[in-house]
């Protein structure tokens, strides 16, 4: 063994350690960016409230000595902050769920909605809206609960169908796609038979939006989403190994079938939790993982947190643009995520030398 060889060894170890540090810094950078954008977003909005007053209103809650107005306090604390936090939580959930589902199904076209989750949620919400307005009065939590239940119901149906074939990836995806069509058809029926008011409500729900954000929702979702995200991250190594094929994963001690069900369930829960409140917000769950894959590579230990933060950032920027660009009206956030996300995504697609989705 020559000295040159020993030097080479340290070189490859050093390169790896340096790359790892870079990835950690990128994730920290995303986090800092998210905090900065969040604070900036609290100073923006339709209400005539300057940046200085907005920040004062925030700080006044922490430092009681500071002066603020009731108006500023209400705008910032009751309207803007819950909405900003809801955007962050929703973007984070969709980013994490998208990454995990792509990883576990080994398919770059998969999004959090692939297993029919969005169509299921939409169908549940549609039924609730149709029944709710005509029978019970528009019960908000009736709609949310129904969307959530239908979304998870879809996932369990997909599992049940695919179980017959030993939860093969293709069966899972195709069962999800098939059920999506069934639910979409149901929504079409609902739209067709409902009156104008109900129809309007359903269409609004389908477009998705964060305008209904409230503190109680944020407080309910924050712990749930945090826990599920951490649980999902625990499977990072298994997801890495599974990307090399099921047999290799099994030979490296991964119980493939079990991990697949667990990770898909966690992702479906994340997705169902947020879309039950916000309606269908598209594209984040697809663009955010791929953006981070292009920048960081495919190691899920880094990819999952990065994609979550990236999703939060994209959705927050989009939603802030939605509520401030054409004041005092709002643009639906789904439109904005596409207009901001697609050019960015296409840029990465073209710029990137490596084509990892071959």
């Amino acid at each position, binding site marked *: 063994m020559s000295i040159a060889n020993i030097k*080479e060894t340290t070189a*490859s170890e050093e390169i790896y350690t340096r790359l790892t540090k870079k990835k950690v810094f990128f994730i920290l950078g995303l986090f800092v960016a998210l905090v900065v954008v969040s604070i900036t977003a609290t100073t923006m909005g339709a209400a005539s409230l300057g940046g200085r007053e907005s920040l004062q209103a925030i700080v006044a809650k922490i430092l009681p000595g500071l002066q603020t107005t009731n108006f500023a306090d209400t705008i910032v604390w009751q309207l803007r902050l819950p909405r900003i936090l809801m955007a962050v939580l929703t973007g984070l959930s969709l980013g994490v769920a998208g990454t995990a589902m792509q990883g576990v199904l080994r398919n*770059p076209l998969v999004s959090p909605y692939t297993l029919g989750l969005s169509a299921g949620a939409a169908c549940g919400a549609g039924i609730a809206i149709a029944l709710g307005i005509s029978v019970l009065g528009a019960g908000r939590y009736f709609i949310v609960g129904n969307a959530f239940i239908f979304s998870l119901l879809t996932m369990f149906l997909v599992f049940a169908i695919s179980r017959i074939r030993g939860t093969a990836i293709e069966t899972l995806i195709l069962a999800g796609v098939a059920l999506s069509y069934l639910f979409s058809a149901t929504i079409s029926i609902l739209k067709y038979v409902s009156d104008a008011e109900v129809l309007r409500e359903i269409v609004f729900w389908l477009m998705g939006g964060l305008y209904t954000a409230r503190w109680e929702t944020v407080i309910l979702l924050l712990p749930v989403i945090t826990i599920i995200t951490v649980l999902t991250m625990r499977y990072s190594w298994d997801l890495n190994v599974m990307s090399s094929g099921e*047999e*290799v994963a*099994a*030979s490296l*001690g991964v119980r493939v079938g079990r991990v697949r069900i667990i990770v898909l369930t966690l992702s479906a829960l994340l997705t169902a939790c947020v879309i039950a409140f916000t309606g269908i917000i598209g594209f984040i769950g697809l663009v955010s993982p791929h953006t981070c*894959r292009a920048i960081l590579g495919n190691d899920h230990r880094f990819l999952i947190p990065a994609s979550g933060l990236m999703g939060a950032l994209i959705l927050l920027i989009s939603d802030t643009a939605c509520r401030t660009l054409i004041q005092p009206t709002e643009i639906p956030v789904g439109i904005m995520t596409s207009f901001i996300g697609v050019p960015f995504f296409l840029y990465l697609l073209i710029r990137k030398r490596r084509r990892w989705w071959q």
Partner: protein
Amino acid sequence: MAVKLVVDNVSFSYGGIQALDGINIGVSRGEIVSLVGPNGAGKSTLLKCIDRILKPQRGVVYLDGKDTAKLNSRDISKSIGYIPQSTGGVFPFTIFDVVLMGRRPHLAWRVSPRDIMIVAQTLRFLGIEEFGTRYFDELSGGEKQKVLMARALAQEPEILLLDEPTSNLDIRHQLEVMEIIRELVQERQISVVMAMHDLNLASRFSERIVILKDREVFSVGTPERVLNLENIRAAYGVEVRVISDHDGKPYLVPISPVNNQR
């Protein structure tokens, strides 16, 4: 020699289609055993049953005298390394990351400096350290095979299972891969079971050869004993000429398929 691995009366079927029927094989510590036989004879299936990637319906695989059905998958993965025929994933990883995956059986979540050191050493041992930051799907067939071997070695296994390690490789890479396997066996007393199509490489590099035919063990023994005219005709339906080379191992020159087989 200590017995490392025992395959005891193992049977396996895919759905209703029988793939292995009552296989018995023993492998010693530091021994290279080649599985040969025609396509569909059950070579790959047997390797997967040994590693419990597939669960045999009947029979037992013993690892150091312990029934592998009673070990958990992580423990098996610490002892047995499996090297499939070259496959890449949908989402490519760098070579360093691919080999690091071999540490998965030993890891919780954090990668220790020792894990990184083992990966770097393994890459150097196989002469592919300069590929560390390249992506798996950019490599040539021979390089890929070495990376897959590196991943299995990073597991620090006592048994290596290889599924046709030399198919799709040029003759230089074939020899390099086989030399590496021989070196490993000599240095670390690893036991090797490999499925082989190239009978001459199998003859030259293995202590023992197992001929599988129609889901059963057809013949077992040293290359000199097993690789003869009659066995090859019966197992493959091929007429061969057997030449004894300088090292005394039989070398087979295929002549023609036996006509009555068709």
